[in-house]
């Protein structure tokens, strides 16, 4: 399992109700269910991935988060997880509002567009950055709203969203983001993971 999921699983701990948005093939869900006895549900737009999840005995609904989240009652999950998909929504702000409504707490991870390799790519090559985390070309990328760790934190502050935890990931190394190291982490992290409410 990838490091990012390990961070998320560590935050969630045992015996909680979890909704995984864009759960993919259910790797995280499966781990949370089997190893941490969580009661897990998933939402995934791709049919083949939904079928994979159902085959594993995971309760996953085929659907698009921008349309489907409305059906879940308020605070019906202890944690709602959104892993690296916020930037792909047409209206990420609305999706985020829904997540905060459904979950007592929400875990959001974002690929950091402020990462130094991305900055250098744009600066020196003058073309849209392509990295390991962001492998697509500008014309076929699903990512519509890229942001940096700093952008996301600014957004939360502006919207009065409480950040309970902020972690980052660089070359598989996990560390905490603090006010003091923010500028530094915004340059050297590939991924930000936030626990918000």
């Amino acid at each position, binding site marked *: 399992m990838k490091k990012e999921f390990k961070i998320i699983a560590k935050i969630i701990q045992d015996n909680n109700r979890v909704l995984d948005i864009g759960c993919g093939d259910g790797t995280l869900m499966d781990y949370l269910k089997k190893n941490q006895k969580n*009661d897990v*549900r998933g939402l995934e737009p791709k*049919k083949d991935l*939904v*079928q994979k*999840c*159902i*085959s*594993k*005995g*995971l*309760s*996953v*609904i*085929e*659907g698009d988060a921008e349309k489907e989240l409305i*059906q*879940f*009652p308020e605070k*019906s999950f202890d944690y709602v997880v959104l892993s690296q998909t916020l930037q792909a929504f047409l209206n990420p702000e609305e999706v985020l509002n829904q997540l905060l409504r459904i979950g007592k707490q929400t875990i959001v991870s974002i690929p950091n567009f402020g990462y130094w390799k991305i900055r250098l790519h744009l600066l020196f090559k003058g073309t849209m950055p392509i990295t390991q985390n962001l492998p697509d070309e500008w014309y076929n990328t699903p990512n519509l709203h890229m942001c940096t760790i700093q952008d996301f934190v600014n957004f939360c502050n502006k919207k009065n969203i409480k950040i309970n935890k902020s972690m980052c990931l660089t070359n598989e190394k996990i560390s905490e983001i603090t006010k003091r190291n923010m500028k530094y982490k915004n340059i050297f992290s590939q991924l930000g993971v936030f626990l918000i409410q």
Partner: protein
Amino acid sequence: MNTDIKNIKKLIINQSLTLDCGKIIKDFPLAYETYGTLNKNKSNAVLTFHALTGDQFVTNINPITKREGWWTFAVGPGKAVDTNKYFVICANVLGGCMGSFGPKEVDPKTNKIFSTSFPVITIKDIVKAQKFLLDHLGIKKLLAVMGGSMGGMQVLQFVSLYPDMAYSAIPIACSASHSAQNIALNELGRQAIMADPNWKKENSTPDKGLAVARMAAHITYLSKQGLQEKFGRKLQDKGSLKFSFDADFQIESYLRYQGSTFVDRFDANSYLYITRAMDYFDLEKQYNGNLSLAFKNTKSKFCIISFSSDWLYPTSENKEIVIALNACGANVGFVEINSDKGHDSFLLNVPEFLKTLSEFIGSTYNEMNNEKRI
């Protein structure tokens, strides 16, 4: 044919059942069939509900019609619902014509065939009758309840009536309340039967009416694309149009054949009663307009499946069930399977569907048996 039907498995239910219409029935037969073996701790039982024109003979050769069972693709040894592993039960619905209490039976009070004096039955009545069978078989907890179309409606009704009885529930290509379009289509079939001069005549059957009903219904089970691909404008004989009303086109001949073979195996009055039961089905109304309340106490794990080209019970209607289940925090998975075979997809060889069904039941079986060990 009649001698055979007397030899099939039947349970005479000697408890009384109060029907939704208010009438009470007692000492009535429920014909059923089982496949596979019930394991020691009775944890491998799957109750299967049949659709409008199905019966208890899910798989193998139907001993009455001598044709393959209606769900041979999905159920049987080594199939998605593997009868080497699971104990599959299916009962002929109340109102049916394969040995269960229905309009074809003799009314003991008059010694005449019930015909249209049979009480109007509902999906709820149909499901309650099958609960007696489970009690008789000594099954307290089912591994799964499953069914497509009207079978799916029974799944929904079952879990709402008996929230503790099924570990998992698989409603396929169905709806929680019959739509206006579906009521209209059923009414078309009923009117065709009732317009036949042989309907209600003693010693005769409204074969033409029933055949037309079946032809119309059959179209609704297929998709436009599926029909076009299979038949297009192909002619029956290689020659040209005959400038008559004979079956010029292959699709006409196909439908006529479907109609004519159907009347050999189905009772016209059963068709009236069962379509009525479907039309009356409105689970939302049973729970004062809040479908979520139907599932409030359910402990079942749901897997809801719809098909992309099904316009009779479209994905949107299946999704309403998903939404209601999510609203009450139930455990639900949902997938729409891509298929151009229309509503009938659940009965046909649609590999993605069969794979999903097989793996869902398999994983559920493991979970249920692991829980028992703990």
